[in-house]
């Protein structure tokens, strides 16, 4: 078995939405190995995003422990969490979250400027097949293209983990498949541990493991003996 990247022990998260207390995570235990491709499935509010945010250092657990390799993320302060994100994590979001006033190239450069050993922005864009569109502003790109820019931005710093929250949620199936292809390519070529949250059950077939979420907990884990290629997906 490969080296463990993440180890979660009894993670919980409770937060206030307006005046209601929401128990987003109710005790999650989990190991993720290096280079793994993991899909997180489950209904809205089942805790997938919360777990991903905590793993990415965007949010804090209310209790429990989470390790990234040997360091305990749950004990880090804000400054160290920022450092952690800066060095090790790439994010891809459903709504791309590109900076509208920067071009595709510049959006990627936003990361490469602060990373230790980044690839060149054009290299990263080439990996997602967007080298021809790199001087366009987000408003001039289609949704799929914008999402691929977001992926290029996420991987440009050669992160150890890539966390994707509904990366195809806003896309039609054809462009969605292109995006999944890009993610798989990165996982294969760079060996990046990749976690993908999705509502789309058909995506599960590309993963090594599938985690099913319900009510703030992992209800089931499925291991795929054979991973399908993105081109074989339909939805």
């Amino acid at each position, binding site marked *: 078995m490969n080296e463990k990247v993440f180890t979660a022990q009894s993670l919980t998260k409770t937060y206030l*939405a*307006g005046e209601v207390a929401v128990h987003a995570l109710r005790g999650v235990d989990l190991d993720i190995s290096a280079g793994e491709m993991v899909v997180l499935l489950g209904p809205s509010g089942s805790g997938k995003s919360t777990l991903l*945010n905590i793993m*990415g250092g*965007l*949010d804090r657990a209310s209790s429990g422990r989470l390790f990234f390799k040997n360091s305990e993320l749950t004990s880090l302060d*804000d*400054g160290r969490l*920022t*450092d952690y*994100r*800066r*060095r090790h*994590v790439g*994010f891809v*979001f459903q*709504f791309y*979250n590109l*900076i509208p*006033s*920067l071009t595709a190239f*510049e959006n990627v*450069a*936003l*990361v490469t*400027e*602060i*990373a230790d050993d980044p690839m060149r922005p054009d290299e990263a864009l080439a990996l997602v097949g967007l080298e021809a569109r790199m001087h366009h502003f987000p408003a001039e790109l289609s949704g799929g293209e914008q999402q691929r820019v977001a992926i290029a*931005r996420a991987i440009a710093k050669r992160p150890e983990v890539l966390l994707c929250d509904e990366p195809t949620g806003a896309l039609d199936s054809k462009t969605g498949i292109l995006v999944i292809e890009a993610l798989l390519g990165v996982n294969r070529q760079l060996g990046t541990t990749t976690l993908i949250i999705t509502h789309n059950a058909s995506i599960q077939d590309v993963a090594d493991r599938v985690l099913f979420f319900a009510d703030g907990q992992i209800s089931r884990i499925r291991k795929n003996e054979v991973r399908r290629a993105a081109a074989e997906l339909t939805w």
Partner: protein
Amino acid sequence: MGVLDRKLFRDLRRLWAQALAIALVIGGGVATLILAAGSYRSLDETRRAYYERYRFTDIFAVVRRAPKALVDQVAEIPGVAAVDARIARLALLDIPDFAAPATGHVMSLPDIGEPALNLLYMRLGRTPEPGRADEVVVNDTFAKAHGFAPGSRFSAILNGRKRELTIVGTALSPEFIYAVGPGDIMPDDRRFAVIWMSETALAGAYDLEGAFSSISVKLLRNASEREVMTRLDALLDRYGGRAAYGRKDQTSHAWIDHELDMLSNMSRTLTPIFLLVSAFLMNLTLSRLVALEREQIGVMKALGYRNGAIVLHYLKFAIVIAAVGVAIGSAAGTWLGAHVTRLFGDYFHFPFLVFAKSPDLYVIAAVLSFAAAAIGALRALREVVKLAPAVAMQPPAPPRFRRLLPARFSLDRLVSQPIIMMLRNVTRHPIRASFTVLGIAAATAILIVSLFLSATMEHLIDVTYFMADRQDATVSFVEKRPRDVVLQMARLPGVLAAEPYREVPVRIRNGSIERRIIIIGRPRDADLNRIIDIDLRPVVLPETGLAISSILAHILGVKLGDSVEVDLLEGVRRTLSLPVTALVEDYFGIRGMMDAEALARLMREAPVITSASLSFDQNQREAFYAAIKAMPAVSGLGLHSTSLANFRESMALFITTMASIYTGLAAVIAFGVVYNSARISLSERARELASLRVLGFTRGEVLWILLLELALLTLVAQPPGWAMGYGLAWIMKTKLAGELMRVRLIVESSTYVLASTIIIAAAVFSALIVRARVYRLDLVSVLKTRD
């Protein structure tokens, strides 16, 4: 250029109109500071250079007749650097084709060389040949007022004899930058001349060979003015010397001081307001920017940008705007400052202008502006730090609105939904709403400050020229005359009434505070010159004691009934203690008044007069003027209506210039505040407004919903704006109140109305600009984007 800087640059380009509006307000503050302080320094520096190069005197004294040998003794007084003795007399002038009598201040020029002090700056021609009794140099402004050039002629009555004089040159003098004739408040270039002629000739005319009647002293750097004056007085006493006085009591110097004070006060009062307003505009705009970009901030944090880097990014936004403001303000301030300096330089007839270089002013202005911008940015920056990345990337929770009233008191039936939306919006952002109100109120206040002066001046004119001094003319005599002379005056052609006055120079003192003033002895039943008390009622002078200007009472720290010490500076020098029995509301100079009989008893003299107030029939003006010109005892004639016209003219210069500059700046503030608020509401509510359009609202209705809030805030801001304006005007008035001139604060209702009208116009103008944006609102794209 880093990627974040590129973002900054594009953000600024996108928000250029809002950024420019803020920059303009900052620029307004910078311009005010540089304009007022810069022109003050230039004019002050000009005056200093003029004084220094033309050796303006420190101490002045007048004697009846003193031997020239005394000059050496004066020079030996410790602390004296230079002495100049000359002959100086007042003389009535007769100018061809000019009916009214004019007054000349005639002074001697040494036959050999230049005077030791108060040098002349020759504009045209030359100085008189030694001994030539008909050649004179006159002050440039008098020559210009009459179109005189070297070769022009007029006549003067010197020591009772009329002489033809020929102008051989025109000149400027540091002593007469502000040339005011006897009995006048304001310079009248047509009716007052400064005349220089050969010493031998003037001594011959006044039988003053080997003697002088006026002495000027320049002090060494560290000399005590007070001590030299005391010694000088002791030397001059037996030659009929009136007490020496310093620059503070010299009319020309004191007036320029006063006007320069007005300039520098402007900058101190108004600059902080501009900076305050720009700080909260920055606050509004940047807070909004941060709120709109919370997702981007979240992403940057998610990508690993540290708080410091993101804060710096937004701080740079504020700094760039401030820098643009400083640049605009510096340019405008420099230009306006040079304009104002020239305007005042012309008005004062300075022979040259020194434009003071004030790099420190620009530095101060820049530091203050950057500080204001940074303080304004503070709240937004704190918000940036506080945003947690995960939270930042989710849309903000829908804002919580509150019902304005408990549910059972429904407003629905009383007011329309748009009005309810507007009211809820205002109550949801109470801080922002109050900042907006405060900003608009500040603009109204600045307008009131720049507009109030004219009503205040009208009040001053009303009290001074119509309630108190109601004579048509004031006749001054060369020497004191028996009181019966007034009967003679009453019989002159056209004269309807004549009242006698006696003026005695004194020093008035309470404890260590002392001032030099004139005490005017007046007839008990005086009706032409009335005394107006602080309640603006004419009052009868008490039989005993002294009535003094209320500001003098304030300076001395005395109340009605207190006693003051008075040194008589004429006749037998004595020191007396007199009770203050009335306080006088007057706006020019400081003075004392007494019953004429009581003053005569104090002076231990038979009733005498030094001037007379007259009213005359305007139809017989020519005959009256001719009669006055024929009276050798008369040294000057002050004309009431001319004085008023001159006063209006000189005030108009100051008031119109300043009012137009500051009105422009206040309009910039109003525009900046309203435009920024409108743009912010638009960006916040674009989705809401687009939804309304989809529901079938017209563009006009949607615009109305957007602007209703601003209309309300603009109107609500007016009353506090009036109050702030009144307060600022009061501060200005108080700072400007001096011994030379002061005003009672009058703010007419029309001033409030005008100020509010200008502000509302500026608001409407910004609404029109925003209208174009609302009309362009792209419904589909607004609704498609995530909130």
